[in-house]
């Protein structure tokens, strides 16, 4: 018998040594639990998200939807970002190209062809998000073929676009409302601030392995 068969056979035999009734499926209990918690009103969700993620050491700029590229230019200048990685096949990527930002660098080939340059010669990357979570100040990053996962990981500065209308109260709401299980990407991510560690004498330090800085452009106002 294989290890697999042995393990499963032992578990099946073990499962018969049970006197307590089998626990019910917890779906309803979980839904009830989250329904019972106090809800932040819809119009305050974006504010709560902004406050929480700021407390996690992110830099948040509220910016009217139509003007985010200008704000981005300011950020790029203020931080001395010489080259900015972006995803050319996305809506925001095309907007960037049209705006003529200096040092734009498209993520247009597999990592295997330029791993070292990605690690050593990119100052910052900008990505979209699938939404955000108010309760914990968390962004939902949803990488795909056009916007690869290393963009929010390798460059020292990560700039993210979050639409204020996409902020939901909790992670549970996000999974249910956005129907995550219908089509998960290879690597969905929750990101709550820049990379950090407290492994040396419980002293907090930022920029452990991932981005040292996280900049959030929170898009506000009427949907375009």
């Amino acid at each position: 018998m294989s290890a697999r068969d042995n393990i499963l056979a032992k578990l099946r035999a073990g499962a018969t040594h049970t006197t307590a009734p089998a626990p019910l499926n917890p779906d309803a209990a979980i839904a009830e639990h989250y329904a019972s918690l106090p809800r932040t009103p819809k119009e305050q969700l974006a504010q709560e998200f902004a406050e929480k993620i700021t407390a996690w050491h992110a830099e948040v700029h509220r910016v009217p939807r139509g003007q985010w590229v200008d704000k981005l230019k300011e950020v790029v200048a203020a931080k001395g970002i010489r080259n900015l990685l972006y995803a050319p096949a996305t809506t925001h990527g095309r907007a960037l190209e049209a705006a003529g930002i200096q040092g734009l660098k498209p993520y247009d080939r597999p990592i295997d062809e330029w791993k070292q340059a990605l690690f050593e010669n990119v100052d910052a990357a900008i990505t979209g998000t699938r939404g955000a979570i108010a309760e914990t100040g968390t962004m939902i990053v949803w990488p795909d073929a056009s916007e690869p996962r290393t963009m929010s990981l390798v460059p020292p500065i990560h700039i993210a676009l979050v639409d204020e209308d996409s902020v939901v109260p909790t992670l549970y709401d996000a999974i249910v409302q956005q129907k995550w299980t219908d089509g998960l990407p290879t690597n969905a991510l929750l990101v709550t601030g820049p990379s950090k560690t407290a492994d040396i004498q419980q002293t907090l330090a930022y920029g452990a392995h991932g981005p040292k800085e996280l900049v959030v452009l929170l898009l506000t106002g009427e949907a375009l």
Partner: protein
Amino acid sequence: MSHTTQNTHTLQFVPGAEFKRRAAEVVANPFLRKSFRGAMDFLMAKRAAQFPDPELLERQRSLAEHIRRYSLSRLPQLLEQLEANLVKNGVKVHWAETPDEANAIILDICRRHDTKLMVKGKSMVSEEVELNHAMHDAGIDALESDMGEYIVQLAGEKPSHIIMPAIHKTKQQIAELFAEKVPGVSYTEDVDALIQIGRDVLRKKFMEAEVGLSGVNFAVAETGTLCLVENEGNGRMCTTVPNVHIAITGIEKVVEKLEHVVPLYGLLTRSATGQAITTYFNVITGPRRAGEKDGPQEMHLVLVDNGRTQAFADEQMRQTLQCIRCGACMNHCPVYTRIGGHAYGTTYPGPIGEIISPHMMGLAATHVLPGASTLCGACGEVCPVKIPIPDLLIRLREEATHDAKPGHAPLVGQGAGKTAFASLAYKGFAFLYSRPALYRLFAWTATRFRFLTPAKQAGWTDSRTPLKPAAKSLRDLLAERRR
């Protein structure tokens, strides 16, 4: 880069043997005492701040317990469902009954990819099977990339805490270690500078490594998804940058649905370090798909038994497998706080280690561990999935000193803590106490001749004051009062 893995042979897990000596050593070391006391006070305060409403906490714990119990009640089905969905997602699934099997599977994958360097995210199961040791023997560098694990590996030690591996070290010690072991680094106590040193060393390694290894916090059966919880981003590096990603986990980590993970994740980070959430929650559903520009080309999951099926086979001890490895039980344990993680000699120290290690390593090697508890109950009270740890400690003490009950399969190492003298003493005790006339005679003699009790009493006086009968028995005292 051999400097990173030298000494991995010097400290292997040595459960049980000389536990008392190691514990006494730490108790006598004021620096370690201070490190652990300070760190545990800090973690306890941070956790408490996350749970201001005891009634809400109780509801959260009950829900988490419910989810874990439900998952375990369907464990074999969920594992099969997980496997089927992972395979559908392009992940290769392997099963290992023993640490050796797990290491052989991983070694085989590494060899097929001509691996010289493996970068590792934090994985307690990889510690449990002593993977680094096996890789080293095969000439493969297995480099820890979690900052705490990196420090501990550089020092040739083992983690002393499951969440904060280098909690026993001061920043001065880490500064000295880096200055001595990392080429081109001079002494600095600045924590930001120390982290930057680690970052620079490890970033090169992420680029170089052929294989990345990670643990798993939750495996989701319905979608074939692996969830990883971390703050640093090294877990993401290990699962994203190298060409091959190998995940390793215990068979108990599976839940049915992604929604079931949410309450568990919320309690895990709050119980562990008092954080409402970690920086990253990494939800992996397969290797790089066609058209994608990054991610590993190949992905594996190794499911490890290593004694978990033994715990599963007993309804009471099955609760051990509810554990989500938050470490709160050790943070709140008065024994752990005083003796630290290394004294236990096992991968998992503290209360969770005392109840899980006997299944992994057998009672012969671990029978003293369930005794390393005051049974104060703190561990059971803080456990986010409500494992009745004190009850399980008592149960294991019993199993360690007795033969298996009729109809029960003996545990590995059943009765290993039994001594002929103790058995005899208990038998004598039972004989005496079930015969009133004999007992009265005994009490009369013992109280009259109490000056004859010896100062040394077999094992009892090794760490306790001698037993001495009272001047008068309770029966005599009561009789006097009635007079």
